[in-house]
């Protein structure tokens, strides 16, 4: 089943050790970006090479892997990464948040609350939150070292000056453990509160930028804001059209070329779970129930 040419989880053991050392260091210094020797992966940069390397380094044969892309288990990227590890590591895969022990994600945190013994691995395109205003790497490193974070507020100030409110909707900067300012990867700011005091370990991998950082379980994560413009999570003001959820993060789906649209949960597992439990949205149809039950679990390659 495992192609004999591959080591377990694709990467060779030395590389995995190197990445694990970086991960340990990242956990020891919450929010600090640890450089690591990122490898070429069999996928293009921007497709999750950082996340895949972190996942490969922490995956054990007993793990159950879930991969989501913008909350969805069934997009091309999520499926191919899931299959990649099913093939190279032979681990069990799932779409259930509850069942997974390792969840690799691009741009979302699952709606179901995470628990201890879970690891959330984020794919990160640009790990440096200060990059927007300060192009020099030497300077941003110094700013982190000296905790000079005034510049972060300059970005938020610009938002308010331009739009009347903090318009940054994703990659919303957070302060971790009252020390390092961190880019939470382009997750919607709706997910920011989930990072705070989270029982699961959160790891961030940026392949092209060669950085790994982490939030250990139960770490304080605060979204930056102004006293008179406090942080506010944002979601479309509508229930999910399929499961009727009032407090999940929604995707806007355009349904024709006349401007019709529907809002549905971005977390497909959550949405399907709710529908299976009998919740209904305005546009849900009966067949969804069966389909949801039929697709809820899947063990790849047994």
């Amino acid at each position: 089943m495992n192609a004999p040419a591959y080591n377990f989880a694709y990467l060779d053991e030395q590389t995995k050790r190197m990445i694990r050392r970086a991960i340990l260091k990242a956990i020891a210094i919450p929010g600090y970006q640890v450089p690591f020797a990122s490898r070429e992966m069999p996928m293009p940069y921007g497709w999750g090479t950082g996340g895949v390397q972190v996942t490969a380094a922490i995956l054990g044969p007993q793990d159950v892997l879930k991969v989501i892309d913008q909350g969805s288990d069934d997009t091309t990227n999520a499926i191919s990464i899931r299959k990649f590890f099913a093939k190279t590591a032979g681990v069990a895969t799932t779409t259930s948040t509850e069942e997974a022990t390792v969840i690799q994600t691009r741009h979302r945190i699952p709606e179901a609350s995470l628990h201890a013994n879970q690891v959330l691995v984020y794919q990160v395109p640009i790990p440096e939150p200060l990059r927007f205003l300060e192009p020099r790497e030497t300077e941003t490193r110094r700013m982190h070292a000296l905790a000079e974070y005034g510049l972060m507020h300059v970005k938020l100030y610009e938002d308010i000056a331009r739009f009347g409110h903090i318009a940054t909707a994703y990659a919303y900067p957070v302060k971790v453990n009252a020390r390092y300012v961190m880019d939470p990867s382009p997750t919607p700011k709706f997910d920011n509160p989930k990072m705070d005091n989270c029982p699961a370990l959160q790891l961030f991998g940026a392949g092209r930028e060669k950085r790994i950082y982490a939030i250990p379980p139960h770490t304080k994560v605060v979204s930056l804001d102004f006293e008179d413009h406090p942080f506010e999570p944002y979601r479309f003001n509508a229930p999910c059209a399929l499961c009727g959820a009032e407090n999940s993060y929604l995707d806007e789906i355009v349904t024709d070329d006349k401007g019709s649209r529907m809002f549905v949960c971005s977390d497909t597992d959550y949405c399907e779970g709710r529908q299976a439990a009998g919740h209904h949205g305005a546009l849900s149809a009966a067949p969804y129930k069966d389909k949801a039950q039929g697709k809820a679990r899947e063990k790849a390659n047994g």
Partner: protein
Amino acid sequence: MADFDTLEADRPLLIADGLSKSYGRIAACRDVSFSLYPGEVLAIVGESGSGKSTLLQLLSGQLAASGGQVSYRMRDGVTRDLAALGEAERRLLFRTDWGFVHQDPAQGLRMAVSAGANVGERLMAVGWNHYGRIRESASDWLTRVEIDVARIDDAPRTYSGGMRQRLQIARNLVTGPRLVFMDEPTGGLDVSVQARLLDLLRNLVAELHLAVVIVTHDLAVARLLSHRVMVMKGGRVIETGLTDQVLDDPREPYTQLLVSSILPP
């Protein structure tokens, strides 16, 4: 009545002692010593290559000296050797109690962010966390440097040269520094714009009781702004004294040459 003889004003703010900088065998700055007192404006004049910009960088801690030292009386009243400060302390000093006005405003401003944020950045850097108050302070400072508050959300790249320079000054003064370094602040400006800027600087310096070290090759700027002058040549201070004394009664051959080289207005 403002009393300039008080104890506070009697203790120097910045002390240079035997300051030297050499690049290999070339001495860019040789054995410069002086004391700068609160509210005092010192002009460093001399032609290009005389070492005046090197001296400014040494004084402001941006360049390590080959010899001698610079000490500064911190806000807590303790005078400390700049070279012995930690980097964090030095950087904090630089963006709170000091200002640095560059000849080219693009060097001292963030050209892509709004004027308001440019002014507010130093406040946010020292922990201001109230948008309304930051903006209020920024508007206030824009007014003080004669920039229309309606332009507060425009980026400085849409500003004229004179406005940029005034914005840079506002950005530096917002934290109430006691010492401001200026490197040819009127250098790249038209004559009429220069006059306005000089007048503005002159008023702000007096009003805020700022100590200033200003590098200029323009003796008219030195005369208008400074109390004291240091004339530099070949990395050495060759003459120093009250500005009007040095300019009206120059002693050194080189100073006499400088003074006599001014075109009549």
